């Protein structure tokens, strides 16, 4: 009698185990819903765009040169040329207005992307202080569109616009 009950229990547990393994398999298959190549490509260009957007929005009148260098480090093409030519004006203006700007990225997404180019949208807020705002500063809200191109395995920004 006990022997038969035992066999029933073994059968029941075995069936339960099979059921659980099938469920586990289904969940794992359903979870595998990311394309590894596309996911990595998107994360790479997004990280480059975040760094460039933050560099672009950062201002500190006490030491502008490294900030301008940081923007140029991630820039290429027309954007790099234009920005480099603005170095003196940007620095002079920051010093004159005693400006600082401390940005944060609120959200960031990737638009069209292929192997060599991508468009990225960035929603960023920046706390800005200058001679007019006083010490506590003001928060500015930005919408940015960056175009990036891949050069020597690095994503560089070739265009950066405020979106109206």
């Amino acid at each position, binding site marked *: 009698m*006990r*022997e038969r009950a035992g066999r029933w229990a073994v059968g029941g*547990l075995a069936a339960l185990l099979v059921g659980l393994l099938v469920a586990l398999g289904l969940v794992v298959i359903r979870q595998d819903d*990311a394309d590894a190549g596309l*996911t990595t490509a998107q*994360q790479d260009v997004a990280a480059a765009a975040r760094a460039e957007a933050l560099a672009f929005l950062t201002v500190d009148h006490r030491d502008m040169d490294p900030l301008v260098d940081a923007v140029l480090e991630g820039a290429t093409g027309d954007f790099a040329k234009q920005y480099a030519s603005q170095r003196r004006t940007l620095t002079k203006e920051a010093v004159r207005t005693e400006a600082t700007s401390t940005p944060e990225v609120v959200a960031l*997404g*990737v*638009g069209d992307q292929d192997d060599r180019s991508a468009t990225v949208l960035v929603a960023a807020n920046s706390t800005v202080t200058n001679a007019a705002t006083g010490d506590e500063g003001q928060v500015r809200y930005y919408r940015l569109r960056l175009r990036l191109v891949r050069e020597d395995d690095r994503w560089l920004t070739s265009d950066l616009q405020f979106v109206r």
Partner: protein
Amino acid sequence: MTGGTATRRRLVVLAALVVLAAATLVWVLRDSHDVAAADVSSADSADAVVASSAVKESARLGAAKGARAAYSYSWKSLTHDKAAARRLMTPAMRDRYDRTMAGVSTASRRDRRVVEAEVVDTALVTASPTYARVLVFVNQRTSGDDLERPTLDLDRVLVTVRRVDGTWKVSELDSL
């Protein structure tokens, strides 16, 4: 007697395996739930994924349509506009939308308000085949008798969409 011992041993091993499998299932399920529910707001997050180009494009399109409908209405066609917006939402989102619009309806008829939302651009934050988040730039133009001239808001909206029966429905609108 030996048969009984063998059966007992099998029982113990099976019971242990069942517990192990159940625990693994719970762990995997909870983990996947966390990823979907995580507040991913940036495409460079480790939790952000892209399922495929087709999923990405359809999610961007669905988010754009949903956001435009949710942020547009005219006092002249309020019932129709609300129905159009609700069609593109999940049930939970519909409830939140109804509560928001309940406060808006009376005032919009009184002031003959027209709100037009234009989607300027969209970009993907994350997209699995059934769950996606899209950053949408929306320009919202409002006119009405209570306004001397139309106002223009340049909005940034994080739109969460879920695929229900093949179509993307808005499940969350987060105006940043």
